[in-house]
């Protein structure tokens, strides 16, 4: 069966599974990267590029246990690379903004304020939080993607929630560690 980019180069139509994968994963990936970067436009760019990588490697990716998890990890890695190359607003992931004052947001309960609070988390905490609580990956899968143990994932997500609760936007957040 001709698949992925090989199919395109041969002039054959792309496989239906890949089209379905794109349609299903793009919204979730774009949302996750919006949370991860705090920048909607950048997130859409990165999501598209990550999906292109999935197309490029589809013959292999389709056999992975969790292609969706894989493309999310690729998207986050691309975001990390983008931070380093362009020194965008979030700067280096090693220089998180938690030590800086919160941005002035008229209504701290808005989605924008939550997005900003998440984007200011340290990178590992942010990765674990987004993958676990937005993408809804199981602990074990997040651990595999972050190259750490399930216990570390739990610690990172708990630390992320603790940091979020220190912000005005999420001060009333109830503990929901799963």
């Amino acid at each position, binding site marked *: 069966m001709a698949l992925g*980019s090989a199919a*395109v180069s041969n002039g054959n139509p*792309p496989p239906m599974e890949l089209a379905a994968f794109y349609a299903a994963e793009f919204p979730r990936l774009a949302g996750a990267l919006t*949370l991860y970067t705090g920048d909607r436009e950048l997130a859409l760019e990165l999501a598209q590029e990550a999906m292109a990588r999935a*197309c490029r490697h589809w013959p292999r990716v389709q056999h992975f246990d969790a292609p969706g998890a894989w493309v999310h990890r690729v998207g986050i890695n691309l975001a990390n690379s983008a931070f380093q190359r362009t020194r965008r607003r979030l700067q280096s992931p090693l220089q998180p903004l938690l030590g800086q004052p919160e941005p002035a947001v008229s209504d701290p309960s808005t989605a924008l304020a939550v997005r900003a609070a*998440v984007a200011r988390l340290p990178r590992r905490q942010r990765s674990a939080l987004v993958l676990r609580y937005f993408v809804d990956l199981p602990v074990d899968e997040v651990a595999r993607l972050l*190259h750490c143990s399930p216990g570390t994932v739990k610690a990172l997500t708990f630390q992320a929630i*603790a940091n979020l609760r220190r912000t005005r936007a999420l001060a009333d957040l109830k*503990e929901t560690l799963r």
Partner: protein
Amino acid sequence: MTPSLHERLRDAADPVPAPPDGFALALRRGEQLRRRAMTIRLSAIPVVLLAVAVIAVSTLNGSGQALHTVGRPGDPEAPTTTTLAHPVSDPRVAAARPAVAAAAATRRTPDATVPPAPSVTRPSNPVPPLAVQFDHPAPPGTRIAFSRTDGTYTMALDGSDPERLIAGHQSSPLGWSPDGTKLLLEATDASYHASLVSLNVRTGQQSVLVNDLTNDVRGAGWSPDGSRIAYSLNNQAMGTWAVGMVNPDGSGAHTVVDNVGFEMWMADSRIIVWGSGCPNYTCTMKPDGSDMQPFTLPIPGNLLAVSPNGEWVAYEDPGTLGLRLIHPDGSGDHAVGQTPISGAAFTPDSNRIVYGRSYVSQGLCGYPFPNCQDQQQADAQRAAAGLRLAAVDDSTETRLTSDDSDSWPLAPWHG
């Protein structure tokens, strides 16, 4: 009703549908990437051929140097990128440990090394046994325990004599018994449920202390006299926490106080908690849950460890992601070691602290792709990663391991 974290994240993410022409554009871009990779590969062929020729010539001349992998001899699961400050492949270490070779040989078939069925104290709620691997009994009270992607290890405080106790990443060490013979582990099963297991590092005997299917175990700490174990329970359905207490044999498990918990230590017969429900996120209480009071002044970051003598608290600086120490009264705040870190634990004398210099994957380098864009940064991160032992006054530091996987170290409670 207050929306949940999941709902707030969903609102904040504001997902959008896939653009109509997005798939076609992704396919086109994927094809571009494929052609570029092909071009790079073709252009590399002459270089590879030249390199092969040079190696062949040098080998024929007898000057070729054998390539070697570093790690435990005969251990097929040990990553070849891992090196230890005093690798056991070192002949000096090997000579001192004749049992290593025989034990390593048995590891070629890991299933064969699984010890007999563990003693499960609660047969009504069984937990699959952890695959424990032993070389020899560990000297009591002188070793650190830490988890990596490929297993749970113990190691001497000078970085020598590493020993993988458990293969795989289904367990994390939480605390040593005061006599150094037993290790508390958070064991995660296939459904991601975490139970509390006590592992005798001399005999391999395992006891499941807490395995409540409705609750997940997290932090745990042994009392200084070894008579009790405090732990945190997370109700996964409700998202609430509780502090529990159990005897070392698994009997007498009970909840001490509700709505408090996460990381847990015990010092001077008092429970110390970092987590929800505490004023300032840290609190201390008697073993029966009474007399709860703040343990520290507000700490700007996440608490990682409490020294056995209770004088120091280690926390992660949210700005630099580095390690900082502070007295519970808020004095003496200072940085220790290098950044970023991944966990920390004090030595029994409270004078030193073990921490993990974190490896953070960069770009696509950690994935099976040839087009790594940030190889230099990734290499630098990998080169600096590993466990380090630092004095609490930051005057000295010793690198214990060179390890490109995540580590979550833990020191012995008492020497």
